[in-house]
C-alpha cells in the first residue's frame, strides 16, 4: 500500500477500524476530537456502532457494556476526560475484560490547556482508578508507530483480559505524517468463553467486579497479579538508538523521546558518545533493560514533558549506581532538540554526583530559564 499523508488522530482511528473495531463510544475533547469525528462517519458506514456519549462517564460505561459481549471496543479522550473515566476503568479492570483506550494527553492539572503534555504517565501507569490493577500502556513516538500499535493493543487486551492504553500527546494526535495503514481486518467477534451475549444453548454467564467475600476478592486480586506477571514477562517493548558505545544514555518516551533523538543525532555529529533509550511499553516498564544500561553508561539523562514521572521508574531500575539528570518541560510546553542538546553537552563535561536530586537540580536550572 502506498504511503499517504494522515493526521495522527484520524490515522489512529482508521487503524482501529482496520483492526476490527466493532464499537466506539466517546465524547469530544481537544486534542483528540478527530478520533471521534473520523469514527462518527466511518463506523456507521461499515454498519458498526458509534455513539457520542453524554460524557466520558457514559462513554467508558458504554465501552464496559459492549466489551462484556466480547466485541472489540475502544474509547479515546484527553487528560480531563480520562480522569472522569477512572471509575469505569477500575470496574473494567476488576471485571477482567478487554478494552482499548487512547489518551491524547494535554497540559494539566485541571482544565489546563490543549497543548501536548505527558503529565498523565503516573495516572495511567500507576493506577488512577481505585484498587490493585495494572493497565498495559504503550507509547508510540510517531503516527506510523501509533497506527501499527492499534491491532497490537486489541490483541494484547484480549490476550490478557485487560485494558490496553495507547498513550500519546496532542502533538502526535494533531500532526500529519506520511504513513502506511494496515490492511483491513474483518470485524469478527470472537466467541469468548466469558462473554455475556445471551445464554443460548449454554449456561448463563455473569460479569461483575463485585466480590463481597474478602477471600474471594483476594483471589481475584491474585489472579490479576498473575496475569500481570505474564505481561511483565512477555510484553516489554522499547527502542534503542546509538547505544552500543554510549556513555550518556538519554531516556524518554513518546514525543519527548522523539525530540531527544534529534538532540542525540546532533550530539553524535559533535562527536559525543550519546544514545537514546525509548521505552515503548511504559507499563510494564522495561526496568531490566534500563538496569543493564546503567551497568554500561556513565550517566543517564531522563527527558519528559512532565515533572519527572517516568524518572521515578528509571531511578528504581538504576538503584543509585550511576548519576541521573532530568530535563522536563511542563504544562503543554514541548522541548526543542537544542534544549536537550544543551543538557547533553552540559552533562558530558559536568562533575556529576551519585547522591544528586535530579528534580531539584533541574528546577534550579528551570527557574533561571523560565523567569
Amino acid at each position, binding site marked *: 500500500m502506498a504511503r499517504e499523508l494522515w493526521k495522527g488522530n484520524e490515522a489512529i482511528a482508521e487503524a482501529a477500524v482496520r483492526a476490527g473495531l*466493532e*464499537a466506539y*463510544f466517546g465524547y469530544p475533547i481537544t486534542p483528540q476530537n478527530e478520533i471521534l469525528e473520523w469514527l462518527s462517519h466511518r463506523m456507521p458506514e461499515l454498519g458498526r*456502532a458509534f*455513539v457520542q*456519549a*453524554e*460524557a466520558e*462517564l*457514559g*462513554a467508558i*460505561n*458504554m*465501552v*464496559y*457494556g*459492549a*466489551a*462484556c*459481549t466480547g*466485541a472489540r*471496543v475502544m474509547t479515546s479522550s484527553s487528560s480531563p476526560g480520562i480522569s472522569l473515566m477512572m*471509575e*469505569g476503568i477500575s*470496574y473494567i479492570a476488576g*471485571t477482567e475484560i478487554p478494552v482499548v483506550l487512547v489518551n491524547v494527553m494535554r497540559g494539566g492539572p485541571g482544565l489546563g490547556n490543549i497543548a501536548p503534555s505527558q503529565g498523565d504517565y503516573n495516572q495511567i501507569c500507576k493506577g488512577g482508578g481505585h484498587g490493585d490493577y495494572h493497565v498495559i500502556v504503550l507509547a508510540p513516538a510517531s503516527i506510523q508507530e501509533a497506527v501499527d500499535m492499534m491491532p497490537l493493543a486489541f490483541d494484547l487486551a484480549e490476550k490478557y483480559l485487560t485494558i490496553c492504553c495507547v498513550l500519546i500527546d496532542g502533538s502526535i494526535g494533531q500532526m500529519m505524517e506520511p504513513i502506511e495503514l494496515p490492511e483491513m481486518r474483518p470485524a469478527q*467477534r470472537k466467541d469468548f468463553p466469558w462473554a*455475556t*451475549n*445471551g*445464554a*443460548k*444453548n449454554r449456561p*448463563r*454467564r*455473569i*460479569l*461483575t*467486579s*463485585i466480590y463481597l467475600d474478602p477471600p474471594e476478592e483476594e483471589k481475584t486480586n491474585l489472579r490479576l497479579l498473575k496475569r500481570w506477571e505474564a505481561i511483565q514477562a512477555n510484553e516489554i517493548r522499547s527502542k534503542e538508538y546509538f547505544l552500543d558505545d554510549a556513555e550518556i544514555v538519554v531516556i524518554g518516551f513518546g514525543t519527548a523521546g522523539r525530540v531527544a533523538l534529534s538532540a542525540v543525532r546532533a550530539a553524535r555529529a559533535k562527536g559525543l558518545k550519546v544514545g537514546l533509550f525509548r521505552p515503548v511499553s511504559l507499563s510494564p516498564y522495561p526496568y531490566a533493560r534500563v538496569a543493564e544500561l546503567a551497568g554500561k553508561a556513565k550517566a543517564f539523562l531522563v527527558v519528559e514533558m512532565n515533572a519527572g514521572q517516568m524518572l521515578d521508574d528509571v531511578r528504581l531500575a538504576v538503584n543509585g549506581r550511576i548519576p541521573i539528570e532530568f530535563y522536563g518541560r511542563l504544562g503543554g510546553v514541548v522541548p526543542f532538540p537544542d534544549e536537550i542538546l544543551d543538557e547533553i553537552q552540559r552533562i558530558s563535561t559536568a562533575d556529576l554526583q551519585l547522591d544528586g536530586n535530579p528534580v531539584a537540580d533541574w528546577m534550579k536550572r528551570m527557574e533561571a530559564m523560565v523567569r
Partner: protein
Amino acid sequence: MATLTIPDNLVYERPQSFTDSPTHYCPGCTHGVAHRLVAEVLDEMGLANRTVGVAPVGCSVFAYNYFNTDFVEAAHGRAPAMATGIKRVLPDHIVFTYQGDGDLASIGMGEIVHAAARGENITVIFINNANYGMTGGQMAPTTLPGMKTSSSPSGRDVETQGYPIRVAELLATLEGAGFIVRRSLHDPANIRKAKKAIRTAFEVQTHGLGFSLVELLSTCPTNWGMTPVDALKWVESHMLPFYPLGDYKIAPAITAAKI
C-alpha cells in the same frame, strides 16, 4: 374400590427465568415482587436465552444471582450506559436494567436522561422506594418532603434539601422516550397492572420501538421502620398522592403497533 385421581392444577411455580437462589431481600421488601414480575414476563415471552440484564448498585446489586439470564453488574448509576453499549453491539438481544432511585435519579441521572433521549432500545425497571436502601436509608432524590431518613433526620426540608424528582414525568418530556409509565406494587391489583406494564415495556423493545421504563412505587420496610403491611399502606397513603400512577409517554408508534 374405585381410585380417585385428582388432576394436577398447578397455579403457581417458580419462573424458569429465575435461578434456584433465594433472594437476600428483607422480609416484605417489594424488590422480590418486582423481580418475579420481570421473570414471569421473560418466561411468557421466551426471552431468557437472548437477554442480558444490567444490575445496579443498590439493594438489587445481586439481581444477577436471581435471574437465569446473562447479566452484568454496572457501576453506581451507570447501568443505562452499560446497557447502551451492550444493545448497540447486540441489537437483536433484549437488554434491561434494574435500578433503584438513588442509582437512577441521583448519581445516574445523566445516564438515564441521555439513554432515554437517544431512544435507546432498552427496558428500564425503576424501583422508587423513596430512599437509599442499601446504604442505610439515606435521603434519595425521591424522598418525600418532610420524610425522615437517616440523612434527613428531622424530615426532608425542601428549603435546604430540595424537592423530590418525579422521574416518569421528567423522562416523558423527552422526544426519544417511547414508553414511560408509573405503577405501584402495594396491592395485588396494582401488582397485576405493574406486570402488564412490564410486559408492554419488553414488547416495546422486541418490536424495536425505543426506550421503555416502568417506574414501580416500592417499599423499604427496613429503613422506613415499618412492618411490611404498614409499608404497603404507606405507599398508598403517602407515595401515591405525590407520585400519581399513570402512562406518561406512549409514543404513537407503540399505540399504532397495538402492543
